[in-house]
């Protein structure tokens, strides 16, 4: 990540801006290198999540009925809402980058604040969803209960929508694997969101002082890449975890 010292003075420093680190020969080279480094970091994130997606695909293939039943336990309303929330937050983040590049300090602060807020909304909805899972004993390793799957009618709201047939006990056991992957993948995603929101908070404070609207917006641009990446991960998680089979 490049240095981001606040540019509070307009005095030229040895013919180059204060934020230019000495091992770079130009600000352009520094910004270039920082952007490239960020993309490489995102590659590592792709491969990190890749292991989880591999596990997911293997077990969905093996235990499809259990995955369908498990997916029916998730609320498509909350999931879709969260998807929309993240898409909006990507929009506000992109607008933030535009504001930084066109030196609109207040616009930048507003965009970042909106992104921050939407991120919190996302986490809030996830908390609601997680709490519901805890109440229904669908958390692997913590008194996991097969009842919803052996006897679907014990879950009236879900049964009314999907009329699931009861699973045989062997297949019902595999719903625990579905929920393991659900918590693992959304949990890993949420962890990345939390880190992102934390950095957003820091950025809002710095943006208010004009740190990013004086020609050095690299930090905002690169953070934007991270934020959009998290959005993309969620796009796939939504499709794979929530929409397995709703007919």
């Amino acid at each position, binding site marked *: *990540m490049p240095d981001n010292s606040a540019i509070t003075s307009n005095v030229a420093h040895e013919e180059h801006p204060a934020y230019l*680190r*000495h*091992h*770079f*020969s130009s600000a352009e*080279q520094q910004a*270039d*290198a920082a952007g*490239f*480094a960020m993309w*490489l*970091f995102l*590659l*590592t*994130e792709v*491969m*990190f*999540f*890749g*292991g*989880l997606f*591999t*596990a997911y695909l*293997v*077990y969905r293939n*093996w*235990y499809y009925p259990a995955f369908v039943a498990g997916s029916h336990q998730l609320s498509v309303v909350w999931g879709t809402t969260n998807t929309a929330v993240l898409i909006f937050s990507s929009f506000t983040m992109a607008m933030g980058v535009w504001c930084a590049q066109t030196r609109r300090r207040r616009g930048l602060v507003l965009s970042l604040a909106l992104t921050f807020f939407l991120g919190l909304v996302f986490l809030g909805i996830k908390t609601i969803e997680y709490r519901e899972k805890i109440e229904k004993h669908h958390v*692997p*390793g*913590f008194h996991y209960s097969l009842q919803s799957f052996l006897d679907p009618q014990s879950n009236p709201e879900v049964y009314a929508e999907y009329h699931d047939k009861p699973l045989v006990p062997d297949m019902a*056991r*595999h719903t*625990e*694997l579905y929920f*393991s*992957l659900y918590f*693992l993948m959304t949990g890993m995603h949420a962890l990345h969101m939390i880190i992102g929101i934390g950095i957003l908070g820091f950025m809002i404070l710095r943006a208010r002082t004009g740190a990013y609207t004086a020609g050095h917006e690299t930090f905002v641009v690169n953070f934007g890449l991270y934020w959009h990446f998290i959005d993309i991960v969620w796009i796939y998680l939504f499709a794979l975890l929530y929409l397995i089979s709703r007919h």
Partner: protein
Amino acid sequence: MNEHTIVNLPDQATARIPKDNYITRENGLLSWLLTSDHKRIAILYLISLSFFFFIGGALAGLIRLELLTPQTDLMATDTYNKVFTMHGVIMIFFFLVPSVPATLGNFFIPMMIGAKDLALPRINLLSWYLYMAGGLLALYTMAVGGVDTGWTFTTPLSTHYVNTNVLTTGLAVFVAGFSSILTGLNFIVTIHKMRAPGMTWFRLPLFIWAHYAASILMVLATPVVAIAIVLIALERTLGIGVFDPTKGGDPLLFQHLFWFYSHPAVYIMILPGMGVISEVISTFSRKRVFGYTAVAFSSVAIAVFGFFVWAHHMFIMGISNYAVLVFSLLTMLVAVPSAIKIFNWTFTLYKGSITFETPMIYAFGFLGLFTIGGMTGVFLGSSGTDIHLTETYFIVAHFHFVMVGGMLMAFLAGIHFWWPKMTGRMYPEKLSQMAAVITFVGFNLTFFPQFILGMLGMPRRYASYPPEFQILNVFSTAGATILGVGYLLPVLYLVWSLRYGAIAGDNPWQATGLEWQTQSPPLTENFTEMPVMDHEAYDYEWLEKQKKEKGVDSAG
């Protein structure tokens, strides 16, 4: 010039170490611990790597000591399991993977491309701290009882059947993995974005190409083993069932994720060493590396193909026969670029002016031992023979030939080659040549018998064995003792040379490469003005012209 050596030192009566260099520029412990200078970070790594190497080596000594006799008489079987596990974990993750990249790569990549530092100097320092954190965690694990699953953490043993310190070891490896990822990321950005004017891709030293290829592997493969470790941790603590057959999970899934990294990891380990060999062989035959383009592309080819072959570590584990077929075929492919390099180095030697300074002795050792190791890899990649040879001492011999006979020799070649540049001092030549030969002899005595043991059927990871295998094991242990002497000597004379070694001057080997056109030890900023690259790599004619134009090329 003495016809038996190309060493060209300045007049020792008047030569001095340059007063201003990266070592003397700042003083105090904090100036080292909080440095962003890639050269100082390289030295930090060198010291810590050496420390971990000797711990791993001590563990190896314990293994060989136990295997002197067929019975389990030196330690309990469980203890033996812990010893070989920690030996593997420390040697692989805390020595081999970072060895050349973190020391020689860190020190010389910026200098070779004409840059002042790596692209992300503070990330570089973070890499070292992550490495130290992981390493200290590994030591802590040893102190509280170690782990006995083998460095491969094979499931379901590691998740369900042991109650040793799998989690702390996993955490240590996880943290060290991020050190590796950041180093690779740094190198890729640096090589792409910070080359000096005129330094086109095909003028880069092959050392750079090798590190570039290894860095791609570090960045793309390491995260997968990270997630595999996370999954093991969750399986052990929460019983999520992802690797548990009783819950519908598949233990082989872990192995797929683990080996997806661990196979490219062996190329992460060897490629930088191959980079060193290119530099050393060229310098000590006074000849451009034969087939520069082929060597450069074969480095990248090894990196790419290395991603497609991981399941050859799983042939007997229960994957489908069709997968065995596919992965075995692909494994044959990956041997080709490595062989291309060996051929090219050999052709470099042909009609060169060869001299046998210490780095070159290590390089010759590399050529022979890596070839044997590589060829035995082909036996193992062929699934029919692998069924008989896998999990025997044949595998142990194979990977020690490539890793110790290959990689460790390349590391030592590199340390000796660049020691004068890093420290400004030369080490005692006769003693170092002797140490290199001792290492070579000791290595062969230690590991060649293990090929035979493997073919005869002695299993690996066993503390006891049938008595008819004892004589070969005794040879192996005897060799290990000699090997230990061979590795101890460099520590002693290199440290000695820091104070008493001859002053080396800028370019004692008369090598090409931008790093040799600067003072020894280099300035903190490497170059006083940005160099412009106007000649090809390994251009010895250019070097001759420089000498004629500038007179004596070694400064005092």
